């Protein structure tokens, strides 16, 4: 696909020592189109963040990666994604409180990114850094560039993290739950910022979140992950409005909503499978209301029209139950 900016092809990640090797992720395949915002949703441990870290080559020591992660820059040849960190791919993290170096002025951090990408001199990079801080909506950027991280609020810090990511002039932004640690009003400001960047700079975004409302608002396309695999993918409106996979349905039903009349909160019974003992068949089968004996024996693959794919053997029964 040549209007993709990132191709993930049959990616799996294994972790742990040789004696206790587990494969918490994969195989997973996905594409991020140029200018597209793709959401990756699922509960904790489903492999969302691991996918991003694999793309950045920032997995913990001892992790091994199978499959391809390829970055396709606008100009030039495609390269393995991890070689493009800071050179086309940038990342924004979940925890703005710890993502910044406590002994570095925030302007210096942003300037370091500028210098890395452009080879600019110190003074010019500092000026550029102030402009970037301004661009991400930090008031008094000139003065704020001299601040230490501990002098800033969580929202401002997350803006600094964004500015540091933008300093490397990326085409693809990987966001690892960037709004989870922030309160709702600040969350909204950061989302507006990402929307603006996408609009003004034509950034492609791969956005990891467990917050369905955030994903619905921001993303063009959504991939739902469960136990290290993609179980459903399609346009955000379709997947979240007309979910085809029992897990997606359960996830949506479990999300409290202000719009709905208050009722008892619906959880999903059971626990996600342990990566040390993945079921042979469908990984959601043990928790699934639609499961039949075949589900525990056969691993379903993503099927259906390219625009809305579902990995479920009982997809017709699920659709009928609506």
């Amino acid at each position: 696909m040549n209007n993709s900016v990132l191709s993930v092809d049959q990616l799996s990640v294994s972790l742990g020592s040789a004696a206790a090797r587990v494969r918490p992720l994969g195989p997973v395949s996905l594409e991020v189109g140029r200018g597209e915002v793709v959401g990756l949703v699922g509960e904790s441990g489903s492999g969302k963040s691991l996918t991003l870290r694999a793309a950045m080559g920032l997995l913990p020591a001892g992790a091994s990666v199978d499959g391809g992660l390829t970055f396709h820059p606008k100009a030039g040849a495609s390269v393995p994604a991890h070689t493009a960190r800071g050179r086309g791919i940038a990342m924004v993290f979940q925890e703005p409180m710890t993502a910044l170096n406590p002994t570095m002025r925030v302007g210096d951090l942003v300037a370091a990114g500028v210098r890395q990408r452009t080879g600019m001199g110190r003074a010019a990079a500092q000026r550029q850094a102030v402009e970037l801080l301004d661009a991400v909506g930090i008031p008094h950027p000139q003065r704020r560039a001299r601040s230490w991280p501990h002098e800033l609020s969580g929202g401002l810090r997350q803006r600094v993290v964004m500015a540091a990511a933008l300093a490397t002039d990326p085409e693809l932004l990987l966001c690892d739950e960037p709004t989870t640690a922030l309160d709702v009003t600040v969350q909204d400001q950061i989302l507006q910022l990402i929307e603006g960047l996408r609009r003004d700079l034509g950034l492609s975004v791969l956005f990891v979140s467990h917050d369905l409302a955030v994903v619905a608002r921001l993303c063009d396309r959504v991939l739902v992950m469960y136990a290290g695999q993609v179980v459903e993918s399609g346009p955000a409106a379709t997947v979240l409005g007309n979910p085809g996979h029992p897990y997606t349905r359960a996830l949506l039903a479990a999300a409290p909503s202000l719009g709905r009349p208050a009722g008892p909160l619906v959880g999903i019974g059971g626990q996600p499978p342990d990566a040390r003992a993945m079921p042979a068949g469908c990984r959601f089968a043990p928790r699934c209301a639609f499961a039949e004996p075949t589900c525990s024996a056969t691993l379903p693959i993503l099927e259906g029209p390219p625009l809305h794919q579902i990995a479920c053997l009982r997809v017709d029964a699920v659709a009928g139950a609506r």
Partner: protein
Amino acid sequence: MGRFKFVARRLAVTVPLLLAVVLLVFLILAVTPGDPARQIVGLRASAAELARVRAELGLDDPLASQYLRYLGGLLQGDLGFSYKARQPVTQIVGERLPVTAWLLGVGATLAVVIAVPLAIGSALKQRGRLDRAVQVFGLLALTMPSFWVGIVLIRTVAMPTGWFPVGGFGDTTAEHLRSIILPALTLAIGVIPLLVRSLRASILEVLGSDHVTTARAMGLPSRTVMRRFVLRNASAPTISVLSLNLGYLLFGAVVIEATFALPGIGQGLVLAARSRDLPAIQGYALLFGVAVVAVYLLADIVIAALDPRVEIDS
């Protein structure tokens, strides 16, 4: 800026600390049995002679006024007078101070210059060849007494090559430097294992922190990541370790100066103790105390300069 306030407050605490050191050192002489006047005049002197010297020295005055007089002398750089050596203590200590200052300065520098790369190397490749070698060497170095290390260096380096003198301090700066290298190395070998262990642990901790991941995700060169993101955050505990080991270093200096026949403070202290030269002992003790206070202060200032959060934490 909070950090300047921190340093100012730290300085303000230092003043009473120094006064306490002076008081303790003063009391050494005041409570030690034996009459300094008797030491001067000798056993056969008459009672009248003794009384005259006691009055001359002010020994009949109340302790408080003796203390004030001692303090007043100190403020003018007067550490008292050694009747044994027939010299002002300031002069005795002053002649020996540069030797020990060289030893400690070059020793600490060598220790840092050697320990930092070893710590980085062993933290980056945990359980690698270097890491194992450093651990074994560290254990060995901790168990080897410094006088033995000194003798080994003299026998295996100084004597066969002739590059370094086997003892003495020389007269010119170049000679000082040449004669201080081996003693300083001996001193460094004793501290390097402590520094490496502390710094390695801090580096490992910082390497796992989120802001290092941020730096890597920005594609910053690994040298920059190590220097500005890892070392700067990992160095504070090691600076504390270095300053807390000053006592060990001073003690090590006494032994090492003896091994290498260096005319420094350590040797002077031994000489003064052997001849029961109380005013000189008092001078050395005061110097040691002031040095410890000064180094702790310096360490705190360096840490404050490295970490902008110091004021908040304190």
